[in-house]
């Protein structure tokens, strides 16, 4: 009896020590944020910094941070950036958004992924806080909301259709198959727009197979593709399931042409993934880390130095967002003492009239719905790196 009590006391004491130690660490890391200068625009954003989609949230956060540091070093317009974790969940995203509001956010980078962005964009619309999301690509994010803008192109109308167009134009294959995740909006949206466009172009889709969250075995889907004699497989999904598909297809000796989407960006940086498996995978993305463009190379070098990783499209989009804000704020003559609502009106006016050159495209313009017009580049993975297809 005494012994168990003793054990419990020790457990309690240890847990208390851990808690205190953690509070100390946590407190330390959050201190620099307290040094707020009244001269800076408060720029906030939510993204999945933890959980299954964390690679996107962290990439966007890092990309935006690089841009903010560069701009602040130049003098002139100053930004203060704060990213809050939303764990890719609408409820947590609204909580994160509210805590940013308490912090005094004046302009927003929206949310990184689509489901949280749907929720936070409705809040931002009601509160009149202007938002430019780097990567939340669902049409519902901007639909009917005059102050919600996107830096990435719309998934469903643009990307799925463009993929079908590309496959048709390049005559990549006769028999097309699709493997998609039917419990995810991103995947389903892309698949639907791909199928619509494919029907229009007369592409021959011979097999379709689905999977759901948590599925780790794709042998059924791959066998179905193989049996139907599919030679091009369209994979509208994020990189995580795609990496498993590549590995399992390789194990069963099935080697069709793979065609991916922008969510597959990041597969090469994935821990434990053998890049040779993704050899020859094609995807459409607006950003190419291997571009010879000077600005892109500088960005990639800086990103690698700071975060020891090749930046993906999410990082580049967020980087562009901050620079687009800089351009718009300068043109509008905005000052950091303006309220969120004043800035909101100025930003709507600027974004609908300006043209912006960034890493993910040149001559980008926005229409009044908040959608961006820029072109996607076909990429192919060669020797463990992206290379332009065109």
């Amino acid at each position: 009896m005494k012994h168990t009590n003793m054990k419990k006391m020790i457990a309690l004491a240890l847990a208390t020590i851990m808690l205190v130690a953690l509070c100390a660490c946590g407190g330390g890391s959050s201190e620099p944020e307290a040094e707020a200068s009244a001269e800076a625009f408060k720029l906030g954003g939510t993204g999945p910094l933890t959980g299954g989609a964390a690679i996107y949230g962290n990439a966007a956060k890092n990309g935006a941070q690089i841009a903010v540091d560069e701009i602040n070093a130049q003098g002139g317009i100053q930004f203060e950036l704060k990213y809050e974790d939303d764990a890719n969940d609408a409820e947590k995203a609204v909580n994160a958004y509210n805590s940013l509001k308490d912090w005094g956010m004046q302009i927003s980078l929206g949310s990184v992924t689509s489901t949280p962005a749907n929720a936070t964009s409705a809040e931002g619309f009601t509160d009149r806080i202007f938002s430019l999301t780097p990567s939340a690509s669902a049409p519902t994010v901007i639909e009917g909301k005059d102050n919600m803008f996107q830096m990435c192109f719309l998934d469903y109308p643009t990307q799925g259709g463009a993929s079908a167009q590309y496959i048709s134009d390049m005559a990549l294959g006769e028999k097309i198959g699709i493997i998609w995740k039917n419990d995810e909006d991103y995947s389903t949206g892309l698949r639907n727009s791909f199928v619509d466009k494919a029907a229009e172009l007369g592409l021959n889709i011979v097999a379709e197979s689905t999977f759901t969250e948590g599925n780790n075995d794709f042998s059924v889907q791959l066998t179905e593709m193989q049996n139907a004699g599919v030679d091009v497989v369209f994979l509208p999904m994020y990189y995580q399931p795609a990496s498993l598909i590549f590995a399992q297809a390789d194990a069963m000796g099935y080697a069709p042409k793979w065609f991916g989407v922008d969510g597959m960006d990041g597969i090469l940086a994935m821990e434990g993934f053998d890049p040779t498996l993704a050899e020859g995978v094609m995807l459409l993305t607006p950003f190419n880390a291997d571009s010879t463009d000077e600005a892109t190379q500088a960005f990639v070098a800086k990103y690698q130095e700071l975060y020891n990783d090749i930046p993906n499209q999410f990082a580049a989009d967020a980087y562009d967002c901050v620079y687009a804000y800089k351009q718009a704020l300068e043109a509008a003559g905005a000052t950091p003492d303006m309220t969120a609502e004043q800035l909101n009106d100025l930003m709507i006016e600027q974004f609908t009239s300006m043209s912006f050159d960034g890493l993910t495209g040149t001559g980008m313009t926005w229409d009044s719905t908040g959608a961006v017009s820029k072109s996607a580049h076909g990429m192919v993975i060669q020797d463990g790196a992206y290379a332009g297809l065109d």
Partner: protein
Amino acid sequence: MKKKITLTKYTRSSFLTYGLVIVAYVILQAMVLTGSISSSLKGMLVPICAYVVMAVSLNLTVGVLGELSLGHAGFMSVGAFTGVIAAIALEGIIPVGWLRLVIAMAVGAAFAAVAGFLIGIPVLRLKGDYLAIVTLAFGEIIKSVLNNFYVGMDSDGLHFSLLSDRTGLAEGGRMIVNGPMGITGITKLSTFTAGFVLVMLTLFIVFNLVSSRSGRAIKSIRDNRIAAESVGINVTKYRLMAFVTSAALAGAAGPLFAMNYSNIIANKFDFNTSILILVFVVLGGLGNMLGSIIAAAALTILPEALRQFADYRMLIYAIVLILVMLITNNPTLAAWSDVIREKLRGALRKDRASAAKGGDGHE
């Protein structure tokens, strides 16, 4: 018959719960009206109400009926989807927002009750671990079905389809449920007051059920099923009664939660959400409704309050949870709190302690 009304111990503890909920509502509402509340806390008021209803209703199954249910979020999602569909479909007919919310909650509760009844028939033949696993499976099935569920509305009325979108809407039609994309563009009708009313209603239903003759029958089944059967209690009937009531209340919480956000997806109501609600119940004490309320509110606010610790907050959250569980179950501390309670009892004359002790009798 005595004329003087004597309150039973249980009634007193339930009045204490009502009182505390009302006091909390009045204070928070005053803070909202005077604008002295942070946006962060203000945004959490409605979800807290929804989670409180979920925790109290699950406590009915777990604490009072004594069966472990791992699919409670499934009932919430049935309620959320059917309720929101009803609210959207009635947009043109009933312009009054709060009335649509009430109808949504009623529809949600009704559908969840039907689901609870249908699930209850096979499930309640099982006991213990088997029941837990079947309810877990039920939650997953609901999630999968709703992920493949398409509902649209046009001038001809509502159209339903499964697996793929075959609703074939006419010009000007609106897609309400769009498979895995869920419901988007929800008009936010939920208010803190609506949440408060639902919490009070839930407490009223649960307290009255538990202290009624049926409630005693349910508790007797929990404590000893064979003995209960031997004295002629209809075990299936009373188990089903508790289970369906619990499901219906969860179904009413669904629309309250969903209509606080502009969009809702089926994946939100997954296994993790069910477990989260179970954590509220276990932390608050089985059978202890006030405990469930406090635990639900505290554990919803805690992760947000820990935001300043950035990446460490998940770890701190887990450690706090472990500490609280250890402390609340520590015999030494429990003995101390008993001593303090006795002293309070002497000082205040009124017995206030029973509320916190209500559920310690069993596992």
